[in-house]
């Protein structure tokens, strides 16, 4: 622990406190995540173990880098690359307006990080603005892989922060247990709309019912025609008929080619949702600044 000097508390993660710290030798700024160990519970939390071992295998510029793991008696500290803020804080700082080029750049980087995870058979399962880190160079990195496991809905909530439903796809809301990369693509769609609307969440539901209603009100209600098998989901409920709202009202600042991409991400039927690598080649990104593409 002597190697690092704690500077300030940044926040509470899924399983422990996060500090900003400085490497005393190199003066490099890092984020330290202390893993909380409940003595009579489960040893090292499985969420922490999942995150540690996945991040040890995944190395990509759009995935937060795990530099080191410090193990001492009864203490486990993860040393991460430091990012200045998360997307949620970024939204707070830009007062309801994100530049269209930045929307495009951040969305592209989100998709590129996801495409890499998915190519490596890793699902993030808990994408939300708080888990997307942005550094001072405008680079976006996927963080908090603590819930990257098969039944991604957290079994328990360690922090006071309520785990949000807002980015959860309708199939998972209706109790689907077998999900694939499509789970992250729905979340990516929600975040895309939120980016374009300067940080206003697309589907801010208060509970599962309300969440599904909010989705139906905007996208229209799905049917067995558009989504075969929907009615057989364990928690399927009928919320009455809704017709879809034009996306030009939902994301007014997004050009039509961007709305087309959004439409292809926010698809009820998980098997029809666009994949991350395909989405990266969508024509919305044709005029992306080439320096971001490499």
């Amino acid at each position: 622990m002597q190697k690092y000097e704690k500077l300030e508390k940044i926040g509470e993660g899924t399983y422990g406190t996060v500090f900003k710290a400085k490497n005393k030798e190199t003066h490099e700024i890092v984020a330290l995540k202390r893993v909380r160990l409940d003595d009579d519970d489960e040893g090292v939390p499985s969420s922490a173990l999942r995150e540690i071992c996945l991040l040890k295998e995944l190395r990509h510029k759009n995935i937060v880098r795990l530099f080191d793991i410090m193990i001492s008696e009864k203490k486990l500290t993860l040393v991460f690359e430091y990012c200045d803020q998360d997307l949620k804080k970024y939204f707070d700082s830009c007062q309801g307006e994100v530049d269209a080029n930045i929307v495009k750049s951040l969305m592209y980087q989100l998709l590129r990080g996801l495409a890499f995870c998915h190519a490596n058979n890793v699902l993030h399962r808990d994408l939300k603005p708080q888990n997307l880190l942005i550094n001072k160079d405008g680079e976006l990195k996927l963080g908090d892989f603590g819930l990257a496991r098969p039944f991604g809905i957290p079994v328990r909530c360690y922090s006071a922060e309520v785990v949000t439903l807002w980015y959860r796809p309708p199939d998972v809301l209706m109790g689907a247990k077998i999900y694939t990369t499509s789970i992250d693509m729905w979340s990516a769609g929600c975040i895309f709309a939120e980016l374009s609307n300067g940080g206003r969440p697309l589907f801010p539901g208060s509970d599962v019912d309300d969440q599904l209603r909010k989705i139906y009100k905007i996208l229209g209600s799905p049917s067995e025609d558009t989504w075969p098998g929907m009615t057989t989901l364990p928690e399927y409920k009928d919320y009455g008929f809704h017709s879809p709202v034009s996306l030009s009202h939902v994301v007014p600042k997004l050009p039509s080619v961007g709305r087309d991409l959004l439409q292809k991400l926010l698809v009820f039927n998980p098997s029809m949702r666009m994949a991350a690598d395909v989405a990266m080649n969508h024509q919305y990104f044709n005029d992306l600044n080439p320096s971001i593409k490499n």
Partner: protein
Amino acid sequence: MAANFWLSTHYKYWLLTKEELVISAGRQEDLKYLTAEEYQKVHILYANFIQALGEHLKHRQQVIAAATHYFKRFYSKNSLKNIDPLLLAPTCLYLASKVEENGVISNNRLIQTCATVVKNKFMAVFNCEYPYRINQVYECEFFILELMNCCLILYHPYRSITQYVREMSEDDNFLSLAWRIVNDSLRTDVCLLYPPYQIALAAIYMACVVKNKDASEFFKELCVDMEKILEITQEILKLYEILKNYDDKKEMPGILAKAPKPKTSSRPSSSATTNSQYLSQSPVVSSQSGTPR
């Protein structure tokens, strides 16, 4: 997570050479007390113990294989006297069940299972009730994490086996034979020495011999290094030779008595707390430093 083996920590840090195994200080220490064959029998015993625990807990074979592999990693760098294998074995299974997404075993259940399995299947070998408690498992978990430098994702031969067998259009019977050979291979050092796809191919090669099938075309097309496959085959055949006369009740108590142990000669009693009395000295930690930048 079955991405690219060649970029994995398994490939980068945890494929050892035979020389590395031989010169490992831990193993050299153990071989002062045990012959090479006796040493392997200790590993056979504990692989069987992990298998029995895993089956009792209804774990998938991948979880059991991961636990056995962790166990072997630990003692590839440490002597048996650094941590009592009777404690390390369930700890490895506990860790593997968390990593391999098998759901967490409740801590009562883990120790209860150890007690039951020791009582029902290994009483004659260990000659005592299961002596450890969950806090000691937690403590031990730290040592194994540290030793492996948290490289916990493993690649198993099972996936490759299923693929190859499908390509050869062999039946389930053949698959389960090859699969069992892979299970057996966990009682040798091959998982520390060879990439999983080579172990899978060696198991298929052996299954072909057993079933009298000519697979020379199949192996020719694969362009694999047959020398490696034969080396693995030799290791597994050596194991079968040992297993022919292996009777844990008869010989293991004697071998375990000779094996180096943590210094406090008596195992912690049931009233023991977590004061590390079962650790004689700090286990060796990983030589690789952190994540390379």
